[in-house]
């Protein structure tokens, strides 16, 4: 198989850039903010940024949904050329599936994180992460 190349248009650059920007915002929240809640929010934003980046990969500008409906098949019988043409037109479904999974996981993690924050608050009566270090060295 030869090298898989893909053209990146200006718009797609924009998508990538904004996704990376979201990631950086999330990192900032997680690494710099001192409040536990804000850290959790930062992690969520981080998650979203990565998901955004993931979905951008499979995205084709003006592409259609990757569904072989009976209607579609009636219009375009499955010859090799047609499949190739469709391939250039349809967005890649795999990243979307991945993102769905990742969102679910992110949701779970956020839920656990928030419940932990509640417990930490009850235990330490503070949300400042610098003060929660009974375990060290």
């Amino acid at each position, binding site marked *: 198989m030869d090298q898989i190349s893909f053209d990146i248009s200006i718009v797609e650059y924009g998508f990538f850039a904004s996704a990376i920007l979201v990631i950086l915002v999330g990192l900032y929240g997680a*690494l710099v903010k001192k409040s536990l809640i804000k850290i959790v929010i930062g992690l969520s934003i981080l998650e979203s940024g990565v998901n955004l980046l993931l979905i951008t990969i499979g995205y084709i500008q003006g592409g259609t949904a990757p569904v072989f409906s009976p209607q579609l098949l009636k219009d375009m019988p499955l010859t090799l050329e047609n499949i190739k043409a469709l391939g250039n037109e349809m967005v890649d479904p795999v990243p979307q599936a991945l993102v769905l999974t990742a969102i679910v996981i992110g949701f779970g993690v956020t839920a656990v994180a928030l419940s932990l924050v509640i417990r930490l608050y009850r235990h330490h009566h503070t949300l400042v992460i610098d003060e929660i270090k009974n375990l060290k*060295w």
Partner: protein
Amino acid sequence: MNSIVLIFGVFLGGAILTYLAHKLSNILSSAFFVLTIFTATVLFYLKVETGDVFSFSLNGLHLEWGITSFSWIFSLIVLGLGTMAAVYSISFMKGKERLGYYYFNFILGIFSMMGILLSRDLVSFFIFWEIMTWSSYMIVVYEGRSVQKIGIKYILFSAMGAYAMLMAIVIIYSQMQSVMIEDLIYSFSSFSISYQIWLPILLLTGFGVKAAMMPLHVWAPGAYSHAPMAYTSVFSGALSKMGVYGMVLVFSTLISQLPEHTIIREVVAWLGGITAVMGTLWAITQDDAKKLLAYSSVAQLGYIITGVAIGTELAMLSAIFLSVLHALFKGTLFMVVGAIEKQTGTTNLTEVTGLIRKMPWTFIAALMSIIALAGIPPLGGFVGKWMLYESLIGSDHYILVILIFFASTAGFLYCYKFLFGFFLGQEEKEWDHVKEAPASMVVPMLILSFFSFLLGTFPGLILKPIDQGMQSLGYVPTEGHFWGMSVLFNEWGNAVVLQPILYAIMAVFLFFLVFLTLKGLKGTRYVTTKDISSSGEVPGEFENLSYKQNFFQPFLRAVEPVMKRQIDKYYTGIGNGIEAFFNYVRRVYSGNGQTYAIYVIIFLVILLLFKNNLFG
């Protein structure tokens, strides 16, 4: 079944049985204990002959057990002293806690030492070496006193030594894909030159620790004095000899192949000499008999190391001879201290006095051993030291001979201190109740001191097997080579020139013994120590007339500058420094979750910055 496997099986099975029997009754356990060691000993001398080999393969390694005539000599030390100390242990340990634990580790100690001697390959050698280390460690900490200091120091040094050894073994294995000692001897000359230098050094470090060589000796006094005395006699007598055994192997088979071997020899010989001197000086300053003997052991091992390092036939012969002798007399002396500890409850030389009439048999054993230790004819130490001096002079080590001579002369001081402190001097009321130790403790001591007398008078008895053993290491037979040169021995080791003198001395000695005994029997008046009048003053009831409180003050003042430099302190300093540094390092784990997250990002950035250097 192969007899070697059988013996190991006896040891292991006996150890476990003894441990389990302890749960039922102490007597049963003690019986199993002695029985195990005796059975193994008898089996060993009846069944195992040189040339018997048991080889097997484990984890892809070819391993082999068998005995050479050289390791047979050391088996005499281990099993001889081991059986005696085992018998001695029974009474000595009576009434103590965790007997099963003690017996178990004692048997494992003897087992592992025999294993070391029977190993013909480096891996089983190392395995037995480590078993020896931890089983002896278990006994050092048995009484639970200052385990964190003494015990850890012992295990720390042992581990460093053992790992130096392991490193050497691993490199050897990678070089020749075999761990057989024989193969090592044959292919050693084909190793690269840096390995040829470093491997012996690593091995010597490993053995030097166990043999308490100078900068590595700091564990010894503590460990020797903290183990129960019954085990210390084995510990100092036999276990330290495993280090000597290894050193002999390294020097005679590896270092002798090096073209530039003299420098290593010189260094180790000097280290041995310094060990002897410093050990002696430290021994003199001790007031605790255990410590005194421990340092004395260090000093004695110094002589032996010097002899091994010099490595001429005579030097090696003397070193091995001294090893056997040292096992006999130092084993006895530690047993003596153990007996005194058992009967009086203390081993402080300034407290216990005048036991000569209360513990006469113990005194005889102590006296014989002290004579042997000090190197006075007709007991063994004299022969060994004579040979050592001769070999040193013969190989032009004049300064070293002065050093050793100084050490052995200064050795008289602590010998005297030991003998006087416990047995002679003013009798005190406090010790009136003291009785002779039980027979099962006295008999082993007497047997051992009898042997040191026998070997001193007829050194040929042991020199001949040693000579044969050394031939198996590639030494030319010493018979006819230096026997004639030596003023002292003919081929059977009986004196030619000195023989009449020797017998004369013995005759005088015997005469006095008989004379004094007869005189004693006639019923002379016994005086108490207070029954004196000095310069018209009659000493009071509680006045202490003993002058042993500050023994040898002038001498100690003279050597003080040397003594001040305690290596121990440097080690402690280094150790504390390292621990403080480690303690500082662990602060990277700051406890703040966010910091850890930042570490991740920093790590990522570093990887990305250096990705071209790191990857492809």
